[in-house]
Structures are given as structure tokens and as C-alpha cells.
């Protein structure tokens, strides 16, 4: 086993050397993409999904995007905005990338926005969809292949409203995104909010909150507890015997990045999404199968949105026939979004955020024993965000 790994390492090193030699000789013809994602710390699994999704797309397209050989440089932002800024500056100044794809988190996106777009490099966000750049500060060099963050919370709010749930308790972390989540949910849900619980970011034990929820016995709860918080909350919610009694609605709390840890505890819980692994179209099926084969894990939305980002670059570079110097033509080509998105319906709004469908999804066990979210019903069709009207771009 060790020998095998050693051999692989040597092979990788040699491969890298060969790659370097090649790139200095033919650097001009190569398309250069910088990937910036959180690859260390507890949220690293999200960044890995994103990197894997993008890598898989490049591989599927034969190592080329838009007919050009592509060099991908990967950088870790460590979820530190200052770190992210120096990393993207390296990507732009040293590696001379044409596109930056990333990041996962909105606070990092806010930090790298200026350094990237002001260097006239295209920034494509495969996840972070902050409201800051959706309205009057929208930017022609900035594209989003995920969603505007509020929309996911609105899916659950709309579902709660439509299905006649009357009493709901909201559980979110006590920081900006948590408050936005609660606001997004309440934007669509007009029933009674029995309680809003603002827990400290990173809280581990929810026994006190669960006891209060049990005592209030609402019809449903709405939770926005990303990453490890969600893993802990879901397991403890199930252990406290609430899962069979109180409907569990959530955003970014049960998805393929957390399900390997939540497993059976999350079965039947609801989330909101623009996609799910079982979305029925041929290219999505092929993507999910290839991803599982390559990485032995079910892809989450982070992976599929990065895959779409690669398809977007591919389509635009093809459209301008590899000439990236004419930025206006490149912007127009990107905006056309002339590719088959894994989610089906997809086009860009005036603010370069997507107009797409949103679904209620539910956790289920796959035949292979892994867990995934599956589509229950469509909640919004061709849904754009509410900030686009303030964007001066056409």
C-alpha cells in the first residue's frame, strides 16, 4: 500500500514537472483559470466539492474549455477574507488567469470582488450569492451560477405558506446570514412565528433549544445551521424524538456535504435547492454517476454549480473563438449562457445572477446505501431575485 502511494507521489511529481515544461513553452494558447475555495478548516468539505465539480467538468470536456487547453490553479482562502485577497492577487499577477472561479462564502466574495473585477478578470461565483452585488453594485465582470442567497430561504417560506403550516419556530445562528435567513423565510411565510432562536455561531449542543421546541410543539421548524452545526442539530433533533412529530424545514442544513455524517438521522427532512442529484435529465445523471465513481461521494450543489461554471466558461470561450481580449464580446458571450445546465432551466438576469427553478427537496437513502436529497416538488419557476431591478446593467 505504502509502495503504491509512493509510486503515485513520484508519478505525480514527474507529471507536474512535465506539465510545467509544457506550459512555459505553449503558455500563450492555454486558457488559465484560478479556483479559490475554502479548503481547510471545518468547512473544507464544501470547497472540496467545488474543486471536484470543476475538475470533473474539465476532465469530461477532455481537458479543454472552449477548445483551448486549460491550466487550473487552485488556491485555499482558509475562510479568511484578507488571505483570499492576497491569494487572488497571486492568481491574477503571477498566474495571469483569465477567469477566477470561487468562492464558497459570501464574506470572502465581498473581499475578492474588487481585486478581481478591477483587474478586468471575470469572477464566477459557484456558490456565494450575496445581495451586495445583486442590486445597484452589480458588475459586468461578475457572474453567479448558484442563486441569490435569499431565494433558498424563500423556497421554504413559500412551502410553509402553501402547505398550510400555522405555527413555526425559526432556529438560526446569531450573525448576519442567520438574520437574512430568518428575514427571507418570513418574507414568504405569513403564519405565526412562535419563537425565533438566535444561537451563537458554532454552537455544538442544542439540548436547551430542543427542549423549548418540544415544549412549544409547533407545526414545523425552519433551521439555517450550515456545516457542523447542522450535523449536531439534526442528530440531536432525531434523538430527542422530534423528527417524527415536527416538520423539519431547512436551508443549507441537510445536503450531500453533511449527510455522510447525519445519515439516517436526517431521513425525511426538507431543504430548498435549485437542483438535486436525482433531477431527471441525461446530463445530470451522467454527472452524478461520474462524480460518485471519481470521488466516492454524492455531489452536493457546490459541486454541480462549479461544474456549471466550467460549462459556462466553455460556452463563452467558444462563442468568442478564443479571443479573450475583447471584454465586451466576452461579457455578451457569458451572458448568453449558451450551455446545457445540469439543472435544466437556466438564464442570466440583468444582474448576472441566474433565473431558474427552485425545488423543495427531501433527504432519502440511495440504493447504494449513500444519502442524497431528492426533489419533492417545484416551488418557484423561472424565479429571479428581488435585487435585480436596482441593477443598472441591461
Amino acid at each position, binding site marked *: 500500500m505504502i509502495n503504491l502511494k509512493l509510486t503515485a507521489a513520484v508519478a505525480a511529481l514527474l507529471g507536474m514537472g512535465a506539465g510545467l515544461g509544457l506550459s512555459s513553452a505553449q503558455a500563450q494558447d492555454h486558457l488559465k483559470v484560478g479556483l479559490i475555495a475554502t479548503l*481547510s*478548516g*471545518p468547512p*473544507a*468539505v464544501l470547497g*472540496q466539492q467545488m474543486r471536484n465539480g470543476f475538475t470533473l467538468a474539465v476532465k469530461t470536456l477532455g481537458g479543454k474549455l472552449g477548445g483551448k487547453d486549460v491550466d487550473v490553479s487552485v488556491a485555499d482562502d482558509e475562510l479568511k477574507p484578507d488571505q483570499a485577497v492576497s491569494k487572488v492577487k497571486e492568481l491574477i499577477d503571477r498566474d495571469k488567469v483569465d477567469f477566477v472561479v470561487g468562492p464558497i462564502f459570501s464574506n470572502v466574495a465581498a473581499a475578492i470582488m474588487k481585486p478581481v473585477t478591477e483587474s478586468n478578470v471575470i469572477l464566477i461565483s459557484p456558490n456565494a450569492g450575496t445581495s451586495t452585488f445583486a442590486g445597484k453594485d452589480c458588475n459586468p465582470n461578475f457572474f453567479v451560477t448558484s442563486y441569490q442567497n435569499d431565494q433558498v430561504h424563500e423556497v421554504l417560506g413559500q412551502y410553509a405558506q402553501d402547505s398550510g403550516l400555522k405555527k413555526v419556530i425559526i432556529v438560526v445562528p*446569531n450573525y448576519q446570514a442567520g438574520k437574512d435567513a430568518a428575514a427571507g423565510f418570513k418574507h414568504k411565510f405569513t403564519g405565526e412565528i412562535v419563537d*425565533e*432562536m*438566535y*444561537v*451563537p455561531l*458554532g454552537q*455544538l*449542543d442544542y*439540548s*436547551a*433549544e430542543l*427542549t*423549548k421546541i*418540544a*415544549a412549544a*410543539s409547533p407545526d414545523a421548524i425552519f433551521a439555517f445551521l450550515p*456545516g*457542523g452545526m447542522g*450535523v*449536531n442539530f439534526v*442528530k*440531536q433533533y432525531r*434523538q*430527542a*424524538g*422530534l423528527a417524527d412529530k415536527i416538520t423539519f424545514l431547512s436551508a443549507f442544513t441537510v445536503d450531500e*456535504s*453533511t449527510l*455522510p*455524517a*447525519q*445519515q439516517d*438521522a436526517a431521513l425525511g427532512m426538507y431543504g430548498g435547492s435549485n437542483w438535486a442529484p436525482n433531477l431527471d435529465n441525461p446530463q445530470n445523471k451522467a454527472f452524478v454517476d461520474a462524480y460518485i465513481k471519481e470521488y466516492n*461521494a454524492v455531489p452536493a450543489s457546490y459541486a454541480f454549480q462549479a461544474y456549471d461554471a466550467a460549462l459556462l466558461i466553455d460556452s463563452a470561450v467558444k462563442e468568442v473563438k478564443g479571443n479573450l481580449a475583447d471584454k465586451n464580446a466576452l461579457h455578451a458571450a457569458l451572458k448568453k449562457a449558451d450551455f446545457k445546465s445540469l439543472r435544466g432551466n437556466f438564464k442570466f438576469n440583468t444582474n448576472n445572477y441566474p433565473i431558474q427553478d427552485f425545488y423543495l427537496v427531501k433527504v432519502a437513502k440511495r440504493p447504494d446505501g449513500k444519502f442524497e436529497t431528492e426533489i419533492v416538488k417545484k416551488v418557484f419557476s423561472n424565479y429571479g431575485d428581488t435585487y435585480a431591478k436596482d441593477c443598472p446593467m441591461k
Partner: protein
Amino acid sequence: MSFTLLLIQTLNGLQLGVLLFLIAAGLTLVFGVMDFINLAHGVQYMLGAYLAVAFYGIVDNFFIALVLALLASLAFGLLLEFLVFRHLYGRDHLDQLMATFGIILFLNHGVRELWGAAPLSLPVPDALSGAVRLMPGMLYPVWRIVIIAAGFGVAAGLYLLVTYTRIGMLVRAGASNARMVSALGVNIELLFMIVFGFGTMLAGFSGIMIAPILSVEPGMGDNILILAFVVIVIGGIGSIRGAFIAALMIGLVDTLGRSFSVDILRLVMAPSPARMVGPAIASMLIYVLMAVVLYVRPSGLFPARGR
């Protein structure tokens, strides 16, 4: 109904307190007896949880996995002692902080390389899963009761060990004046090794016990370490009894604060600001408690004698 709620929240507080005690007991022993600041205690807790998950994957039985993981934690603790800690005993606290912080980085990254960044989980053993009905509509998970029982069991065992055995006497003596103990002909290096190994095992044990409730992920020990330091500072460094009392105090204050701060504030404020201010105050409470205790008793509730 609100009395019931208070009762259950008190139970929740006890459970958090007991967990903190399990972690803090090892830390206070090592700090008190060896005068050694071991920041790596948190990653040893994490390692206990990871080892339990790994062994569970092999033997598929929680209790066997528990025993194996405990032994592995102990072995790993002794290995660390041999490789790193032994060379730091006489050194400055700052050196110890730097070295043990390095171990945190190293192990956090190590488990990510070995087991991946995605959170893992350990199922509750079947016999102890499920919940008991305390009141109509109020269920309490059996596993949390098991944690409380285990914590009290360990506390009682430690009390007997420290109060009535020879090694316990040496530990107490070491907490008061380690150099004098050494001068009296006790093999202090062996004592240190035993104390350290035992402390690591306790950290591992708490990691194993909490793994069915929390996600097992890199960095899971970092937050809990801060709380454990608060516990040993309030309790008095080196005192098991102090750690026990302080851990329960913190568990109760934190849990009851989180449960009732908003309701209490609502009596004097409008609901919406109360919702915002309540959690902020609740998360400050334990530090306020620490400040008050340190103001009244600067060396903690139960300082080791002779310090």
C-alpha cells in the same frame, strides 16, 4: 409546565457540565501537577472521537470500539509524552504553548488527511438509543442520561483515587509542590507520565462519549478547550473537586441562560430586541461568572494547598 421545563433544562445543564468535567479533569491534573499548559488537550479529545469512529468501522460494536479507542488514546498520549512533552517540562510556559499549539495544527491537519474533512458520525449503541418520557410530550434521550451517569461515575472514581490511594496522594502533593515531591525521592518522571497518560485517556473518553451526539470533525476540540480552561480556572488549578463543581456551574449557567434569557428579558423589554439581546447576554454569562469568581477568589474556588 414551566416547572417541567426548568427541570429538563437543569438536566441538560448537568449533562453539559459533566461533559466539561470529563475534559477539564485531565487538563487540571496536567496543569496542576506538572505545571504544564497543554493546549493539545482539545485535539486529544477529538482524537478519541475519531479513534472510536475508526474502531467502530472495524468491529461494529460500540462497547468494543470504546475500549479499543480508550487504549489507543492512552497509547497515543504516552507516545506524545515521550516524543514532545517530556522535553518541555522544565521550560517556560510560552514554549509549552508554542509546542502544544503546533500539535493542534499538526493533528487537526493529520485527521483531515487520514479521514477527510467531511464530518463523521458514530451511532448511539442500539441498547441505549431512544428516549425516555419524562413528561407528556417531553422526551429525553437515553444517551444523554448515560453521559451524566458516566460523568458522575468518573468523578466518584477520581475522588476515591485521589483521596485514598498512594498515587492520589502523590498527585495532590505534586499539585502543591512538585519539586519537593521529587526531592523526597519519588520518581517524578514516572508520576508525570502516568498523570499525562491518564489525562489524555480522560480527554479521549469524553470525545468518545460525545461522538454519538456531536459531529466528529477536524477542529472539534478547539472550542471546547476554551471552556475547559474556564472550568479549571474557576475551579482552581490542580483541583479535581474544583473542576467538578466549576464544570457543573458552567453547564447549568450556560444552559439555563440560553433557555431563559429571552423570556426574562421580555419582562422588561419589547419581544424583538429581547430576542437579539438575550442570546448575546447568555453567551457572556459564563465569562461573567469567571470574572466574579476570580474577583472574589483569585486562585479559584478550590486552590491546591501551598500554592
